[in-house]
């Protein structure tokens, strides 16, 4: 049971590096959504007795992160007609090395945290830390709005992974609410991306920092 779960989390950590190393936006979106699907399937695998509410939230997560959000992002990408991150603030090789270093540090330092004995052997906490770090690197290091949105979603994936630790204690309503928020957020960002493109003829968010009348 635990080794299956660890394998899935390991896969999600591999997708982190793929997201950090790819310059093409479709690859980034695909990595992000695949990671969401993998994490969405996890509560079902973790739960010993089948529960319809857990299954429902898992299904909603998979549908939301695997289909709806990537669909919205691809549409936004098509309307603004870009598919590459050309000049990131942190280059692809450095960001991959940073992400890998973060993953290794998370793995090595997790045993210092006061964890429950049942979580000690699993990759949940290091995976969550590494995924959140990946999200931060994408948010800081990329200049295009769509890659930043993907970074934000990967950060959310990490937080979701952390939430799995508390799956017994946290009401499923909270999970469902977070999922709804994320979907609506991406929906709005899709509109904003279009507006940025119209106003500035580019998706470079650095242009948003200069004030003009």
């Amino acid at each position, binding site marked *: 049971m635990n080794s299956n779960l660890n*394998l899935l989390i*390991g896969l999600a950590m*591999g997708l982190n*590096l793929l997201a950090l*190393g790819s310059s093409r936006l479709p690859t980034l979106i695909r990595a992000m959504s695949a990671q969401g699907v993998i994490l969405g399937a996890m509560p079902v695998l973790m739960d010993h007795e089948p529960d319809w509410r857990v299954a429902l939230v898992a299904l909603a997560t998979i549908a939301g992160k695997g289909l709806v959000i990537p669909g919205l992002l691809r549409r936004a990408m098509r309307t603004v007609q870009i598919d590459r991150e050309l000049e990131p603030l942190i280059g*692809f*090789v450095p960001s*991959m*090395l940073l992400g*890998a270093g973060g993953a*290794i540090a998370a*793995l090595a330092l997790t045993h210092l945290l006061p964890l429950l004995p049942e979580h000690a052997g699993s990759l949940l906490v290091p995976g969550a830390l590494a995924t959140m770090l990946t999200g931060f690197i994408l948010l800081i290091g990329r200049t295009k709005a769509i890659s930043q949105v993907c970074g934000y979603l990967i950060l959310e994936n990490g937080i979701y992974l952390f939430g799995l630790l508390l799956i017994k204690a946290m009401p499923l309503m909270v999970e469902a609410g977070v999922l709804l928020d994320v979907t609506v957020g991406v929906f709005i960002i899709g509109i904003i991306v279009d507006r940025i493109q119209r106003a500035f003829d580019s998706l470079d968010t650095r242009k948003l920092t200069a004030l003009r009348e």
Partner: protein
Amino acid sequence: MIPILQLLLRLGCWLLLAPLLPGIINKVKAWVAGRRGPPVLQLYYDLAKLWKKGVVMSTLASPAFVMLPAVAWVAVFGAAMLVPLGPAGAGLSFRGDALLMLYLLALARFCTAWAAMETGSAFEGMGAVREVSYAVLAEAAMVAAVLSLSVQTGSISLVTMLAPSVGACAGLLAAGLFIVLLAENCRVPFDDPNTHLELTMIHEVMVLDHSGPPLAAILHGAAMKLLLFAVVLAQAVLPMDHLRPLGAAGLLAGSVLLVTVAVGLVESLLARFAFRRVPLLLTTAFLLCLFALLVAWKGGMP
């Protein structure tokens, strides 16, 4: 009697079978492109022809120009003799021979690069620079792979290091070592062995001024290096300890053939990468091997 037979078997494998691999790759490429292609034994004919020819030397070059390819060939051959060949075993095995293998390969590269610069051609210097700068990254990946194997088996001798390993670690290692194989042997996403365009060549440009027997040594050494990497890749990934000798030999030969065909397929389906993107791919290989090391290390802990 048996040790002599094994020695002959190993020598036969490394010296006689190695030139088959480039032939198979070319055949696969021709087959994918719908051509008939050169015969599989083409490299043997080339080697025989080159061996009979004389050496043309630039007036600038020192005698090292002829000697260095020989030294490089001997270094690659020495590295090959350290690698166990399935049931035939290794020619020489001692504690730490993995390090010697890495250093012998580095020595071979050093000699090729030096020989390339002997003629004083800026063009060949450029090839040497490219080769060596790729090697920095590829060697990091190779060192990480060797480390992960030694952590997994608790040994630094190639014979025991390449013994069974399965699971996530083997998968990561397979991917990482395959990329290293492509980079070290100057195959397609890194270098195009067919091209003779000055801006894209790496290995070909380094050996441009060699002729006759030294060129034969270089070509044979390159084929042997390809076989060496394919054998290391196959043995690091596949568990073949509990098989009978004949089955293990068959499995090894089959997997080396599979690796060769995969190289051919990669070569026909992929374009050569732009120079800027090469470090990214090599870093990926390094990270794959590093994560294999991590899995081996974490998996070993209770």
